[in-house]
């Protein structure tokens, strides 16, 4: 620990911290532009100048390591003058266009010039003008405003792992650009918009939409992937205007993926806002009473074995729970399922479907083995953690398949499951490496769990790791990478049926009534089934439906989601559902009331407490089923990673125009790449 003085306050800080961090610990705020906790130190904006005793000049506190006995002053006239001077230089070339700048109201330069700057300009010369740059469909540039803090360059190089941004030219002519002005090829690209302290990089889809003080801000949870990134949803009236990250060091740190940020315009399009009934192949508007009546008579006139229910990928846990209750108590069947394929899942123990090492754990891992997973597209934020681990610890990463560019170097194997068997049988060189690794991580993707031999592979991998004593109090090396926000929550609630194969039954048209809750990923040829679709967006599921019940999207209702690590988090209502649409749990509750004259739950609170109680009971009665696979007839399979199209992975993203543009920008680039 180092002892130093900041404005005559004694502080003790850890070794390796900078003067700026020491000042922060002393409760002294230092203005800065280029410094950012998550990025490397550049020290080029000079805004953080402070006075240090025995130094003839002010020092840049962000780049100066704190040392024993330092005496730092931040409130002297020298510091004040230095800040004014720096501010004046920064503003020399910065246009005074705040009224037409999207950053206005949340601009570091604006705020700091109010606090630390001078009130008039002595600069009479012409200001520098810089042409706009093309950075793709998400980032709008106005490079005249750039103050060359290089945060964006450092972010792209370090965190995103796509070194495509750079500063060309020198001095006054310096410009930030992508290489030959191509769009940035990263799923994290739009984070540079948050990082930019001025209005040089702003959000293209949000351009001139609203001012920050007009927006209602709701802190909630993202559902675009299973990470459960913490986000802030900004709404103006009903519309979700934008989505921003909030800091959660255990999950998304400070970043969110482009899909999380920009799929929100999908909440405005293709919405289901009133109940519909299909007559002669055409949808007609109906009232809630009418549709409930039809559903009631259909359910009453169908034997309960012929009724099935499927829960989708964005459904919150309350809805899944009440849906399950509805099936068990009102319909009296267990034909419910949350998977959209026949992937192997053993819910007898939570460990079997969680990302057990945890996202933070990635940074401690010393060997990462990817089996049938492409984290770049399946869990972008998690991939950024793997990259961080690679950068900090030079972690060895091996993938069974060649996944293309994952933003870090990795060794790829042949993509055959017999290689996994070799690892399990201790005949592969990786077996030794796993054995010698202190904290190995095996990340199993959903693609592997879809294989015929999934059960064998999963259980034997577990046995193998057990044999090598890799499970300990604080480390569980086996991880399942879920792709969808609802997956883990649904499994915790037991919304699946391992006794029957409901997906196969559905495909062979064995059911008479199919109830889909936000489930759009089932590919089945509809024959005579009566399909009820409840959801927020008109997509595949609603297309084949006979009755549509308009539900709410994730920003329009409170709801719990469990992320892939098993962390339960609550998403809050930021907006309200459009038209006659209702919250999802409410629809089921009303339907149950209509059928039995009794509500399933009196109110949301009762539902919440009942669900949380169920989860608690489940977590207490965890038992390990023993699977003996010694005589299993293993046959080799070619493991192909099937991932959903990144920009169209769910109904919200599918309805988003921005996502379509992103996809176009990406595919255009690809086609020119193959020509050259």
């Amino acid at each position, binding site marked *: 620990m180092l002892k130093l003085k900041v404005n005559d306050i004694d502080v003790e800080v850890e070794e390796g911290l900078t003067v700026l961090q020491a000042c922060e610990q002393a409760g002294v705020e230092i203005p800065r532009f280029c410094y950012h906790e998550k990025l490397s130190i550049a020290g080029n904006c000079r805004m953080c100048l402070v006075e240090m005793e025995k130094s003839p000049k002010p020092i840049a506190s962000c780049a100066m390591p704190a040392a024993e006995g330092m005496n730092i002053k931040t409130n002297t006239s020298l510091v004040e003058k230095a800040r004014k001077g720096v501010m004046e230089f920064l503003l020399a070339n910065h246009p005074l266009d705040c009224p037409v700048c999207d950053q206005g109201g949340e601009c570091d330069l604006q705020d700091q010039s109010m606090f630390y700057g001078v009130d008039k300009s002595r600069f009479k010369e012409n200001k520098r003008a810089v042409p706009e740059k093309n950075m793709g469909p998400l980032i709008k540039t106005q490079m005249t405003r750039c103050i060359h803090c290089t945060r964006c360059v450092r972010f792209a190089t370090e965190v995103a792992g796509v070194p495509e941004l750079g500063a060309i030219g020198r001095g006054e*002519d310096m410009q930030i650009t992508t290489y030959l002005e191509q769009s940035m090829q990263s799923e994290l690209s739009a984070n540079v918009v948050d990082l930019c302290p001025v209005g040089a990089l702003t959000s293209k889809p949000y351009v001139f939409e609203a001012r920050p003080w007009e927006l209602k801000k709701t802190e909630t949870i993202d559902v675009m992937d299973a990470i459960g990134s913490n986000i802030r949803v900004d709404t103006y009236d009903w519309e979700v205007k934008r989505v921003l990250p909030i800091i959660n060091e255990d999950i998304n740190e400070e970043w969110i993926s482009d899909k999380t940020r920009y799929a929100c315009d999908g909440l405005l399009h293709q919405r289901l806002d009133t109940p519909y009934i299909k007559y002669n192949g055409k949808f007609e508007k109906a009232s809630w009473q009418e549709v409930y009546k039809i559903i009631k008579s259909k359910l009453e006139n169908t034997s309960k074995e012929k009724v099935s229910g499927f829960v989708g990928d964005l459904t919150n846990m309350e809805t899944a729970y009440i849906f399950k209750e509805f099936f068990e108590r009102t319909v009296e069947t267990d034909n419910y399922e949350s998977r959209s394929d026949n992937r192997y899942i053993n819910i007898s123990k939570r460990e079997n479907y969680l990302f057990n090492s945890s996202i933070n754990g990635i940074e401690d891992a010393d060997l990462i083995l990817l089996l049938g997973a492409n984290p770049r597209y399946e869990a972008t934020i998690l991939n950024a953690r793997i990259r961080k681990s690679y950068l900090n610890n030079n972690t060895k990463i091996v993938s069974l398949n060649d996944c293309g560019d994952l933003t870090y170097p990795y060794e790829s194997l042949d993509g055959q499951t017999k290689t996994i068997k070799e690892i399990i049988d201790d005949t592969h060189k990786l077996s030794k490496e796993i054995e010698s690794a202190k904290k190995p991580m095996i990340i199993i993707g959903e693609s592997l769990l879809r294989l015929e031999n999934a059960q064998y592979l999963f259980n034997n991998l577990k046995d193998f790791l057990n044999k090598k004593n890799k499970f300990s109090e604080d480390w569980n090396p086996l991880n399942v990478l879920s792709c969808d926000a609802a997956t883990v929550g649904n499994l915790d609630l037991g919304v699946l049926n391992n006794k029957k194969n409901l997906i196969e039954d559905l495909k062979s048209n064995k059911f008479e009534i199919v109830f889909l809750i936000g489930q759009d990923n089932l590919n089945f040829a509809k024959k005579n089934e009566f399909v009820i679709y409840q959801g927020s967006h008109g997509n595949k599921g609603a297309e084949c439906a006979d009755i549509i019940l308009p539900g709410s999207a994730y920003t329009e209702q409170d709801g719990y989601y469990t992320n892939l690590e098993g962390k339960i988090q609550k998403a809050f209502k930021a907006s309200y559902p459009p038209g006659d649409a209702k919250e999802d749990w409410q629809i089921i509750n009303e339907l149950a009331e209509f059928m039995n004259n009794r509500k399933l739950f009196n109110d949301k609170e009762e539902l919440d407490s009942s669900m949380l109680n169920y989860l608690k009971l489940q977590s207490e009665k965890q038992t390990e089923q023993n699977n003996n696979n010694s005589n299993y007839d293993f046959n080799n399979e070619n493991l192909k990673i099937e991932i959903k199209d990144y920009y169209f992975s769910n109904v919200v993203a599918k309805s988003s125009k921005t996502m379509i543009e992103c996809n176009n920008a990406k595919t255009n680039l690809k086609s020119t790449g193959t020509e050259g």
Partner: protein
Amino acid sequence: MSLRKPAKDQPESFEFNASSLEAANNIVAKYPKGKQQSAVMALLYIAQRQNNNWIPLAAMKYIAKFLDMPYIKVYEVATFYTMYNLSPVGKYFVQVCTTTPCMIRGANKLVEACKEKISENECELSSDNSCSWMEVECLGACVTAPMMQINDEYYEDLDKEKTSEILDKILNGETPKPGSYRGRINNEPENNRKTLTDLKNA
């Protein structure tokens, strides 16, 4: 000075020839393993030498691949340093120093001569495509100001007439004699004085 942009007409590809490759490998070998990117400046210069004194984009890409670094990093370096030419220059590349000492001694007259003899604007090829000129910062020959550099040779103690003569010779394909044009040898003092022999007006 403004931001230098790469030329519009770019060759499709670039590769080191045998001698450049040898030189490049020699330079890369000077740096520890994994730090080969430090060789980027020298390699850009080698590429410029090989490619008629300018660096095409293809060469930057080639060097980036050669040193296993991102394209943009090589591009940053090439645009930062003004001695890398990003667009074609003449076979005779005239660089006129216009930094303060030369400017005081009449460098703008040299520039006028260049404008008359070679081309109206900087970095523009002459009518026979053999020659181009540009203003540069200090070339370190202030004692013999004003001066200019043509390819690898310095021409010093110039004025407008002498510059015009030199440029005429070049445009005719001759090679004028480098060095002082007022008869000085190296940097010796003018009017025959040897330093400090006579303290008066030293």
